[in-house]
């Protein structure tokens, strides 16, 4: 009985040995990142999701979603938390708007120097038709035609590091005039 038990233990160990292997796998299949390079070569990196390894001046920093780094040319990376996403106040999700001119309003973020608003026809806001930088928490934008639009806002810290983006919100522009009521007029 003991022999069988010992045999099964050793078989189990062998099985573990045979199947366990160290493998390099991506921390996240997709890493969403923005990189800005100034004239002097100074760089801001903001990681929205996934993970990124940044190397500068012989030092390596691993950034995960919500973290960023500023690196001046030849200097060590300076890691920083991204500013939180602004809370969008208007338009509301799915709001129908009867004009090509829209007011976008969001709550201010502590530490933000300015805000970046992107408006797109695509849900991923990949190819924006409006890209606006504002130091206010309210702005007016114009869109070219009726249809569905998507937008998101992010805060920008002093030094230019972009914060986390707000969840994408959708609005619909419908400039069709209300249908006329047909029928006999009612005299009052």
């Amino acid at each position, binding site marked *: 009985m003991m022999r069988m038990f010992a045999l099964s233990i050793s078989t189990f160990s062998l099985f573990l040995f045979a199947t366990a*292997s*160290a493998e390099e796998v991506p921390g996240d299949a997709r890493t969403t990142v923005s990189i800005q*390079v100034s004239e002097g070569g100074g760089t801001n990196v903001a990681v929205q999701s996934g993970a990124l390894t940044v190397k500068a001046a012989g030092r390596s920093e691993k950034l995960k979603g919500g973290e960023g780094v500023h690196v001046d040319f030849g200097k060590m990376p300076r890691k920083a938390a991204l500013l939180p996403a602004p809370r969008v106040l208007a338009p509301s999700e799915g709001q129908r708007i009867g004009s090509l001119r829209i007011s976008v309003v969001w709550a201010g973020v502590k530490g933000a120097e300015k805000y970046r608003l992107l408006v797109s026809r695509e849900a991923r806001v990949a190819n924006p038709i409006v890209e606006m930088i504002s130091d206010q928490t309210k702005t007016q934008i114009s869109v070219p035609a009726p249809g569905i639009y998507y937008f998101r806002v992010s805060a920008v810290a002093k030094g230019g590091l972009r914060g986390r983006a707000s969840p994408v919100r959708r609005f619909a522009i419908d400039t069709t005039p209300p249908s006329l009521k047909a029928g006999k007029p009612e005299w009052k």
Partner: protein
Amino acid sequence: MTSHSTAGACVVALLALGNLSCRASHPSDAPKERTRVAVLKTLSGTVDVLHGGSIEWQPAKVGEVLWEEDRIRTFKGAWAQLAFEEGSTLRMEEESLVSLGGGVTVEHGAVEGELQGDLRLKTPALEAEPARDIVIQ
């Protein structure tokens, strides 16, 4: 025999001349020794490409294949979306300059996008690549 060898030499010379003239007129059309890196998926505004081995910037076109050693620049109010071979997508923002080869080097300006695989990003100040974890499976 002599006439055959003379004719053969002429054919070889003509072929060589044809090859030379093609290369001279379209330096970017024959990047056989370079690796295909990305495709210019969409763009807006003025976007130029400097193909490796060329000295003249050309207006970029949607669907244009980008090779190692190519450089792309966007002007004020312009942007370009690049789709890379391993699945990454990067959007170059206005007034940006990137070069391709051994990854993507952002020389100035800004890029934003999703990284997949091992795409390496470089700037004058740093190098970055998607982080990988060592896991025991």
